[in-house]
């Protein structure tokens, strides 16, 4: 049960990889909870008097920058939370006992790549 070789990439400001991923998971979790309420609030506009019209107008605004950038931020938050979540689940299932540090990059890395590609496609569509 010697630990895996320590990954020093994220040794920033006194914290290390494990602490950053832990804080990241908490922070993104909070953001997603907050976003869920925002999401429900906006969707619920349809049910109000004259709602469909208001909602369509609102949706048109939200589909364009600067809100589009916020949307991309949301995708980033979801991707990080999901990728790091998979890492934690694998660790809990004893499938990453000696690789949780490396796994962080193997999962969060591709997630970042997806974000970049998806973002490029999305922004290209707006122009």
């Amino acid at each position, binding site marked *: *049960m*010697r*630990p895996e070789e320590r990954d020093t990439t994220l040794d920033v400001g006194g914290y*290390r990889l*494990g602490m950053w991923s*832990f804080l990241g998971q908490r922070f993104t979790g909070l953001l997603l909870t907050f976003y869920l309420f925002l999401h429900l609030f906006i969707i619920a506009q349809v049910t109000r008097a004259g709602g469909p019209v208001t909602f369509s107008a609102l949706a048109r605004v939200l589909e364009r920058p600067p809100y589009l950038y916020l949307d991309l931020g949301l995708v980033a938050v979801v991707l990080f939370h999901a990728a790091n979540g998979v890492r*934690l689940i694998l660790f809990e299932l*004893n499938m990453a006992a*000696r690789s*949780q540090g490396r796994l962080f990059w193997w999962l969060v890395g591709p997630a970042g790549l997806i974000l970049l590609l998806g973002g490029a496609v999305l922004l290209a569509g707006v122009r």
Partner: protein
Amino acid sequence: MDEISFRIFRFDPSRDAEARYQLYRIRPEPGLTVLSALVNLREEQDGSLAFRASCRSGICGSDAMLINGRARLACKTQVAEAAGDGTVTLEPLRGFPVLKDLVVDQSDFWEKLVRVKPWLIPGPEPAPERERLMRLPAQQFDELSRASDCIFCACCYAECPMEGRHRAYLGPAALVKAYRFEADPRDAGSAERRGALDHPDGVWRCHHVFRCTEACPKEIDAAWAIQQLQRRLAARHLRLKGDA
């Protein structure tokens, strides 16, 4: 090596209303450890400086302290390495009441350790008339001996952010010891330890931050050991295993 500063946390409850930091200057010789520097300081500059130490070779676990904000053994830390920017900051371990300067009250830590019954609890078979041989296969022994390497320095305990938030949490050191015996095929004490382990302040308080593993001067993978305990208990709850 050039002169460097030691910035040391000072607090004497019988005299000080508040803690303060005191600066000392020393000219370290090559190979000087933080502990030797402290001993020199106490002998040559300030006899009132309080710290704990005994073996000076990473065996007794008494001289854990915050060195530049991180829990480490003073005797296993080189001054040259710690004094990157010319200053070494020494503070008492986080999460413990300070008794004086770098000396903390570890009562809670020891009390939690006892709560997991860190000793071999034999099965119900009657004690033999002559001595009992309890052998372990070599490979299994290697595994357990890692957990046995713990010197109770409390570095992991001081680094754990869960411990920082929930003072009742047993903490990584006690759980590593619990794992040491839970994983021992000769031990039959699971039922007796379950109350302490299978509890919100037992194994379930761990959120895999891995700071214990990163801090351990004996390179014990404490986070992994805790996760093994979690798995055993989860399997029990899901009835995947018998009375494990």
